[in-house]
């Protein structure tokens, strides 16, 4: 009986998990021995957030093969529903960790539901049209959150789309979501450890999904939709599955994000298309469909501006140039050809021939 691919993919996956766990251990050592600047420490939770966002987007872009430019929208849904829950339950559930886990579940499920509702009409659009509609939805979500006012008092919840006064709260009530000012005072429950655990959970879900019957169906749809139909695969079901799971994980990243800040606002910078595009850059640079690559790209590209801080004004410029150069280097057929020709292995073989 031939050795089947299971062992190769298993090996690959173990390496991926290993890298994450190793990185965690190294960071913890550096932090406890005082070798990490507070600047870097402040980046640890955001790094986890971006890794989860990149891996989850790769599920849609690399595994399902659909371009989504609205990933930040799902992050937004998760961030706000999670933070809303935490603030509401601040005095009710006093065990922080329990409340945070519930917030994560709520954020993930809300994002999944929104992903499902958006996916249903949208996933039948082709390529670029799908891309622009996902971008549109991402912007719509951000805009709606900005005009949302929700308050709580002894009578329950009050919702308004106009302003906080029209909520009509009792004197003992408090405004939780305050329109453009968002949510203030979210309990700071996010830690690096929890972030890494969430990364590992994300990896388990995504990697196990890929190497399963459902994963094969999703990739079949990516590779040849008409052929997938002809072997009886339910296209709508699997597109929705991939899209919803991807959205859900983005929502979880959002909860992690919102519980790391004192004030949570939906700005163009954190929940707009700029964020969606940034995550897409991580995914493409790390390799479309390459889960481990997404992790590495997310970390490197997030750290790069910080490492370049010494060059202050020029750092974002250099970031942009590095991005362009890396893209050309990795994707231009001519340059790829040149690289192969001058690869060490080739040169070694040539010298052997000469002798």
């Amino acid at each position, binding site marked *: 009986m031939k050795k089947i691919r299971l062992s190769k993919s298993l090996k690959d996956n173990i390496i991926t998990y290993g890298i994450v766990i190793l990185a965690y251990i190294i960071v913890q050592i550096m932090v406890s021995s005082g070798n990490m600047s507070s600047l870097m420490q402040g980046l640890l939770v955001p790094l986890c957030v971006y890794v989860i966002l990149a891996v989850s987007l790769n599920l849609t872009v690399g595994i399902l093969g659909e371009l989504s430019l609205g990933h930040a929208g799902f992050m937004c849904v998760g961030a706000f529903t999670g933070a809303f829950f935490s603030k509401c339950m601040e005095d009710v559930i006093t065990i922080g960790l329990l409340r945070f886990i519930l917030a994560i579940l709520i954020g993930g499920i809300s994002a999944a539901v929104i992903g499902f509702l958006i996916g249903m009409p949208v996933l039948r659009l082709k390529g670029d049209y799908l891309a622009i509609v996902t971008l549109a939805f991402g912007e719509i979500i951000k805009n709606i959150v900005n005009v949302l006012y929700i308050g709580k008092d002894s009578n329950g919840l009050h919702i308004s789309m106009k302003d906080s006064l029209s909520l009509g709260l009792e004197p003992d009530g408090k405004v939780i979501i305050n329109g453009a000012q968002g949510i203030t005072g979210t309990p700071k429950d996010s830690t690096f450890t929890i972030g890494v655990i969430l990364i590992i959970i994300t990896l388990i879900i995504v990697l*196990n999904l890929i190497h*399963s019957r459902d994963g*094969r169906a999703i*990739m*079949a749809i990516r*590779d040849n939709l*008409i052929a997938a139909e*002809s*072997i*009886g695969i339910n296209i709508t079901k699997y597109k929705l599955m991939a899209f919803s799971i991807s959205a859900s994980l983005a929502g979880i990243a959002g909860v992690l994000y919102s519980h790391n800040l004192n004030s949570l606002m939906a700005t163009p910078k954190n929940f707009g298309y700029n964020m969606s595009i940034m995550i897409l850059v991580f995914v493409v640079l790390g390799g479309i469909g390459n889960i481990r690559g997404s992790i590495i790209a997310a970390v490197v590209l997030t750290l790069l501006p910080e490492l370049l801080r010494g060059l202050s004004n020029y750092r974002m410029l250099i970031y942009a140039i590095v991005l362009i150069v890396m893209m050309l280097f990795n994707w231009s057929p001519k340059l790829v050809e040149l690289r192969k020709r001058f690869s060490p292995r080739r040169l070694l073989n040539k010298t052997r021939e000469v002798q």
Partner: protein
Amino acid sequence: MAALLEVKNLGISFGGLRAVDDFDVSIKKGQLYGLIGPNGAGKTTVFNLLTGVYKPSEGIIKLDGVNITGLKTIEINKAGIARTFQNIRLFKELTVLDNVKAGLHNHYKYSTVEGILRLPGYFKTEKAMNERAMELLKVFELDEEANLLASNLPYGKQRKLEIARALATEPKLLLLDEPAAGMNPNETIELMNTIRFVRDNFDMTILLIEHDMKLVSGICEELTVLNFGRILAQGETSAVLNDPQVITAYLGE
């Protein structure tokens, strides 16, 4: 013998063009049936109508007595028709083995949760799928290449893989669209043997489109000749191939 595939009065128009008109055919269980005709005659369109890619504007299609007219491709596959395509449609980024396992999708199942949490159901079913898929690959002598990416196979083997994948869906009727295209005479003879093997050992009925007359006359028992979307001749192979109308329209002097 009862008819496995019963088609009456099948027709479709594209814009003003009548692509297929008044198409009838009756294919018995276990037959090797050929659909031939000049390029553009509508042969692939007939396949597309039979597999639900197009919805016919007229006509009835019955598979094993069940009316499948107008059903979607997925349902038609579940009812028992599988096909290969004129331009090979493999899952390029999947391995040879995974291409076949994808074909097993509706016959070996476990839930998404079982897959993600790696419950025992996952391991049991995947093992059974691996065994079944390797069985199929062995029939087509592709078992050695099981772990190769499908796009790395040579052309002839890609065609065979497409057939293997179609067979994995456990169809009653197999539609092959120009399976011998791009093959040299040796490969074609090998393909002929493979097709006969499939029919004999998989209890299969096969309808194929072909231009290679050696293959057609070698394995097809009955033929339908299509010209400009309409049936030109129909019947036993040697009779049809000697029909003067067919010779003029298609085979040449």
